[in-house]
């Protein structure tokens, strides 16, 4: 089956920032966490998928189609939550839904009503008077109510309370369970992805560092800690990033077997890397 989302050599140039040669794909029925520090290019990827920005070069396919030529068909199958859900402030959530509804061919009003109740949305209140978390919930209800095949969520958990955050993550796992829909989840809160992401795509400085299954990531990436004395030119070359303190160094590598072999017998500790470790240590050279 075709992947629901496929980027091949996608490049986007802005003044002062470029997303370069990014390639990854997301099969149906999975959650992909898009991680990276602020300014890495996550939101740019989201914008390219939603057609808010234009690809400079490369190929982007959503649901098997090119969004540039099948714009409406593609967007009809995407649900989105932007980083800061913005709409006209003087309109109620109820009215907002009535405006959005006719654009979608598979809008499900009973589902939207049920989601609004479940999320405890004050549907008659003006959008502008809602907290950021409640705005996100409203945007999420709109995104889910038209049976989207691809959910594109840009930092959706920022501003959410821990209880709803957990519920949201569980909901997303359930959403993809039938194998028909997928979720692209951009975040820098990596703990959101530890349990629910099937794939992890890591972007840094506009470049793809890796895109793999979560198992592969946790199998391959390890953190090595030890006395700075063991660091020499050869051991440094093992690491994708290394931080040296007064009494210890921390190195990150995606080749755990080689690190174990190379540093066997030395006074070091090798631990599985967390996504936070990968984000923090990649590229560090001090």
């Amino acid at each position: 089956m075709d992947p629901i989302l496929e980027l091949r050599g996608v490049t986007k140039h802005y003044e002062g920032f470029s997303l370069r040669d990014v390639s990854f794909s997301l099969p149906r029925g999975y959650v992909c966490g898009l991680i990276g520090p602020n300014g890495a290019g996550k939101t740019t990827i989201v914008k390219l998928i939603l057609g808010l920005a234009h690809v400079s070069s490369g190929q982007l396919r959503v649901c098997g189609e090119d969004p540039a030529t099948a714009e409406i068909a593609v967007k009809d199958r995407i649900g989105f939550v932007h980083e800061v859900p913005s709409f006209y402030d003087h309109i109620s959530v109820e009215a907002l839904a009535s405006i959005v509804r006719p654009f979608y061919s598979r809008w499900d009003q009973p589902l939207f009503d049920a989601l609004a109740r479940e999320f405890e949305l004050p549907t008659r209140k003006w959008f502008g008077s809602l907290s950021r978390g409640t705005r996100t919930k409203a945007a999420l209800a709109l995104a889910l109510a038209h049976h989207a095949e691809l959910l594109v969520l840009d930092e959706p958990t920022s501003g959410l309370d821990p209880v709803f955050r957990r519920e949201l993550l569980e909901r997303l796992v359930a959403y993809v369970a039938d194998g028909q829909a997928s979720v692209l989840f951009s975040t820098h809160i990596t703990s959101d992805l530890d349990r629910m992401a099937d794939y992890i795509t890591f972007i840094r400085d506009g470049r793809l560092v890796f895109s793999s299954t979560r198992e592969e990531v946790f199998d391959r990436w390890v953190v090595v800690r030890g006395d700075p004395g063991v660091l020499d030119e050869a051991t440094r070359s093992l690491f994708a990033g290394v931080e040296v303190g007064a009494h210890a160094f921390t190195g990150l590598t995606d080749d755990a077997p080689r690190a174990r072999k190379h540093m066997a017998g030395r006074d070091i500790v090798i631990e599985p890397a967390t996504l936070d470790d990968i984000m923090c240590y990649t590229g560090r050279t001090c």
Partner: protein
Amino acid sequence: MLRNALRKDLLLNARHLWGILPWFVWVAYAMSEPDAGRITAVGAAFVGALMATTIAAREDKLRTSATLASLPVRRRTLVQARYVVSYVVGAVTYLVVAAMAAVLPWSVQRAAELFEVKTLLLTATLASTAIALLMPVVLRFGLLGVLVFLGAFQVVGVVLFVAADFFAARSGARLFFGTIERGVVALYSGLGQAGPIVETALIVSLSVWLSFRLSVFLAERRDL
């Protein structure tokens, strides 16, 4: 899809469009003045169309452009809807003034006169000019662009007025305003004959079409 986009613009901006109410209060007052009715009706359509044209600028201000562009609708359709909304609002404001002329007991303006072909064509020409000029500016430069554009017009107008007052006949300003006035009068009287009607219709249609093409081009190439 155009219908949905049109509905969206009207629903989202209905509240803002009430901002034209003070104009109608002034119109109600002016209806007792001989000949004021016709001018206020044409002005109402002009102002209404102008206000509706700035919808995109408000979307910029509220940062909703990205949300709207993420919906399954082409940007071309969103632009189309804005042109249609501008004409609809212009027409509605004109009809409101015509209704006021008919019902206000102190009105000296006969409502039927507002539906003379010449007056309607002049209104359509002026409203179309406003829409055609402003829409690409709104789409390209957003709220700031509109403010600068309209502000610059105001400043230039004030400067020219002051210059005309101080330097009277020596100033080119008087000539400038005189030319505009004579142009509008000539246009108005010309719109009673078939030839000028066709010429004006062609020029206005071409201007609006070019403006629309430019607006679509600007909207489609813009990264949000």
